[in-house]
């Protein structure tokens, strides 16, 4: 990892609140920080701290009320709905807590799904998807449906889906939250290797300390405020 490659994500004075009926609930307060290209960051905090919300903002699936978020060279806060969708397709890979695979599609088709948003031909899509599945050691199960797989296997398929478009960033929301210890280990190792060997930038939200351990950098959120980054303090 080379932090001196410069930030890939720049977050600047971001606020976010939710409206619940007549109540306005503030979730994030004046968040400002950078994420370097090739970083493996864990966002931690108690429930209600806003960590998932921050992740959602970075991934472009929610909008900030105020502030600027730049990913790569693009200020995603200015993009229209349609442009944001296209941006996500090309730049973000998702890993969810409950895998979120489409039940009626096979493993291969699930991995192939994001490629439908590109200009690749059918043959090319298949090839890319198979390659991705091979990387997570599941190419022998490519025609199975998610129902026929264990949680760990499903999450691996999800990872293959997340990397098949070669996105700029990977966002993971509690990726080990629903897995037993062995499977969790497996997934975390895979994510580590994606980061080490392929230089993928990973932003992970977790409250599992074992998962946090594997990340290279930790930031804490509390009641919507980003805590001071201890790793940047002089030792």
């Amino acid at each position, binding site marked *: 990892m080379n932090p001196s490659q410069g930030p890939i994500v720049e977050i600047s004075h971001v606020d976010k609140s939710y409206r619940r009926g007549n109540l306005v609930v503030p979730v994030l307060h004046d968040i400002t920080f950078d994420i370097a290209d090739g970083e493996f960051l864990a966002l931690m905090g108690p429930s209600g701290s806003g960590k998932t919300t921050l992740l*959602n903002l970075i*991934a472009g*699936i*929610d909008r900030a009320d105020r502030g600027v978020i730049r990913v790569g060279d693009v200020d995603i806060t200015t993009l229209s*709905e*349609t442009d944001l*969708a*296209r*941006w*996500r*397709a*090309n730049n*973000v890979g*998702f890993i*969810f807590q*409950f895998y*979120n695979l*489409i*039940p*009626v*599609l096979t493993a291969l*088709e699930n991995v192939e*799904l*994001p490629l*439908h*948003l*590109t200009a690749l031909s059918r043959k090319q899509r298949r090839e890319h998807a198979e390659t991705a599945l091979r990387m997570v050691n599941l190419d022998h199960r490519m025609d199975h449906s998610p129902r026929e797989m264990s949680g760990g296997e499903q999450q691996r398929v999800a990872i293959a*889906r997340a990397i098949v478009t070669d996105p700029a960033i990977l966002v993971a929301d509690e990726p080990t939250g629903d897995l037993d210890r062995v499977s969790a280990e497996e997934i975390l190792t895979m994510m580590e290797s994606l980061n080490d060997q392929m230089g993928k930038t990973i932003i992970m939200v977790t409250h599992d300390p074992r998962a946090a351990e594997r990340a290279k950098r930790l930031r804490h959120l509390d009641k919507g405020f980003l805590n001071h980054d201890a790793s940047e303090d002089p030792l």
Partner: protein
Amino acid sequence: MAVPLSYSMRNLWKRRLTTVLTVSGMALVVFVFAAVLMMAEGLQKTLVDTGSYDNVVVVRKGSSSEVMSGIARLQASIVEMLPQMAIGPGGRRLVAKEVVILIALQKRGERKSSSHSNVVVRGVQESSLLLRPQVKLVSGRLFRPGSSEVIVGNSIAKGFKGVDLQGTLNWGMRRWTVVGVFDAGNTGFSSEIWGDADQVMQAFRRPVYSSILFRLRDPDAFEAAKKAVETDPRLTLEAKRETRYYLDQSEVMAKFLRILGMSLTVIFSIGAVIGAMITMYSAVANRIGEIGTMRALGFRRLSILAAFLAESLLLGFIGGIAGLFFASFMQLITVSTVNFQTFSELAFRFTLSGPIALQAMAFSLVMGLVGGLLPALRAARMKIVEALRAA
């Protein structure tokens, strides 16, 4: 960048019971829709085929059917001299003066005397058969002119009592013997009984003819012939092409069938559309997580809308095919009823035509569209974060 069609198709397969039930509802509606249109089409086709484009029918002005019409012998002989008339074999003019009356016959299979129907007895002349090439004798022989013999159309022979070969009928104080059965295809003549015109007129004390039928020398001479008939001060008659004449006779009934059918279908379709809506709302509700995931991956709202619309359109499509499939079996059924306009018996079949099939499919697809639109909009309008949270 659309969501693959296989997604929609497979989801229908996944919830098979629901899909089958929803499709069944739509298929039933399409069935009723198609059946009614087929009935009206069969009725009109039978009547239109009954006539020839080159023939002209002359009846009394203002009479809605031959039964009401009366043409005096003098008037008839004037019409016979029309120059636009064709000359047939043997140098004779191709014209027939016919008399039409209705008699009450008992239908086969009914015991009560009240289950009768009015059947047309047509007194014809030799030229009548020449003018109507679609009429062919299938058993027995032609009646002898001047005798009390008749031939019957095969629909009558099939559907009514006592009118097969060698059967006898009693009217006008005379006994009439059935000596032949004829087939007029799918035309109105198959529901008629034919005898010698003079004999029929005598027996029923009808001194006037009902109609005059003749062939045009040249099909375009119709206008001239019509003018000659209708402007002659000695005649109180009107002339129509035979095809038009019979088409007009089916108007009231065809209209009634179509209106009744349409209103029924509209009401039923509301039920089927509601069924489709329920199914699609449920589908959307069950797949909220998937919707959020696909949006997160980058699929646009429009693609999500299209995916769910595709699903309900597929429901409509399958329902349409199924409905048409079963409706096509109705073509085996012959309807025997009274034509409201002429008050006489008419037998016809359900007829499936290309346009009807297309209309039925279009209707079915529209049902699918209307039923699926609101749920699909709901799916498309979801906020990504809420959808993911609710998964």
